[in-house]
């Protein structure tokens, strides 16, 4: 079967440093792929490259077989198909939660409030945010803000979702409610790529776990293979520290 998202030899430099140094990765429809590894290993940069927020030096990114990394491609049309959620939520502080989620459908698709409001409100309801829709970001907890950020991305009906350490800025007691949202998405068949430090979640929910170091995927496989029988010494050392 053709992968939903296919990365071939992704290479990205910041100055002299290779942040992504030839990354190959296949993500199939409905799969959840977790990228793990120490900070600076290239996880976040890889996600930003997929969403064309960072141009890549070399390699190809295929979405449904279409090369979306062709230099000069219209990035808007690509980004509208790929949702992304960030570590720091990045909600627009001058809009209510509902307006945050309705902005892109309105602007990108040219829809009116009336066309989309019911659908977007339904998303808020699905994720237990119905009573928070009319509030501004600074009136919400971190966990609520992050869930709104997920709803905002989902409102564009993306084919793939990218999550960049979305629980790293949260108080420990708020992590669970955000991870629950991810589990719901997985059960709905969403294709997801996560950069994460939540090893428990990766173990429970991932179809594939990739260990990144020095801009390369050092080891990849199903969660049991990585967490129980890691082959590479670097993976073993990382997991020993991370799971301590």
């Amino acid at each position, binding site marked *: 079967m053709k992968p939903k998202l296919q990365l071939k030899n992704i290479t990205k430099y910041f100055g002299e440093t290779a942040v992504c140094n030839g990354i190959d990765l296949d993500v199939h429809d409905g799969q959840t792929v977790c990228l793990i590894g120490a900070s600076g290993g290239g996880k976040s940069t890889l996600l*930003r490259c997929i*969403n064309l*927020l960072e141009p890549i030096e070399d390699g190809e990114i295929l979405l449904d077989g279409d090369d979306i990394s062709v230099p000069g491609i219209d*990035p*808007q*049309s690509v*980004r*509208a198909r*790929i*949702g*992304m959620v*960030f570590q*720091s939520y*990045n*909600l*627009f*502080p*001058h809009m209510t939660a509902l307006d945050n989620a309705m*902005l*892109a459908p309105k*602007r*990108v698709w040219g829809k009116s409030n009336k066309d989309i409001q019911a659908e977007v409100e339904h998303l808020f309801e699905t994720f237990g945010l119905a009573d928070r829709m009319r509030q501004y970001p600074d009136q919400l907890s971190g966990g609520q803000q992050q869930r709104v*950020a997920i709803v*905002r*991305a989902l409102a*564009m009906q993306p084919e793939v979702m990218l999550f960049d350490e979305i629980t790293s800025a949260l108080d420990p007691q708020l992590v669970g409610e955000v991870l629950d949202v991810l589990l719901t998405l997985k059960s709905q068949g969403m294709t997801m790529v996560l950069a994460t430090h939540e090893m428990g979640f990766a173990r429970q929910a991932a179809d594939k776990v990739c260990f990144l170091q020095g801009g390369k995927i050092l080891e990849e496989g199903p969660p049991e293979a990585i967490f129980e029988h890691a082959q590479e010494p670097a993976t073993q050392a990382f997991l020993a520290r991370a799971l301590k």
Partner: protein
Amino acid sequence: MTRRQMYERHQRRKSITIATVSTAVAILCLYVFVPMTPGWDKVQKSFFNWEVLQKTFPKLLDAFVVNIMIFAWSAPAIAVLGLLIALARNAKSPAMFPLRILGAAFTDVFRGVPVVLTVYLIGFGIPGLGLPRPWNSPYLWGSVALILTYSAYVAEIFRSGIDSVHHSQRAAALSLGLSERQVMRDVILPQAVRNVVPSQMNMLIALQKDVSLLSFIGPVEIFRQAGVFKSLLANFTPYVGAAIIFLVITIPATRYADYLMARQMRERR
């Protein structure tokens, strides 16, 4: 009452007493020593003449309406032009390159020349082209000079406001599929403008005062009117009257700007 509260009450009383005494001493010094200066009698007669003030004050107020009018049509023009220049200087596409250069040159020139000089050059220079009425009006070209100068400053403040919006907001908006233009209009600018409201308030206050510079090229606004009275009555009191009228406007406005600034600092923290 706890020990702490008793201590704090004691401290409070002590500082109120000190403040009262030192203020009284300062006022007393002014009251005693200033009249002892050799020129006080003359100054009192020519600057603080109650009769002259009473006689000229209504006319000064009338003239101040001219200030308000010039201010009222200049301020919106400055806001629009300033914003356009800020956006031009921020534009990234190659087609906008000339605009970007023009914007930079504009701000450099009009921030680099004293306002009064710009008022002179434009206010005398352009009507000198022999334009027909009403295109030779000093009101028009004086306002244009103010608009150009203040737009340059206001543009720089808008630009700093745009820079103050965290780049992650841009990334988030782009990731949703918005275009650069939509990101600027819907996400960055609303936040940027809100961030710089207090600074722009201060520009408004400065503009309100600088309207008086137009007196040099003709319009009879308050400063010019005070000058007319000075010559007529051989007395400087009308200037003091004009200053009072300005203060009535600018002190509350300055206080309000400070309040906005303080509130914003609190919100940031």
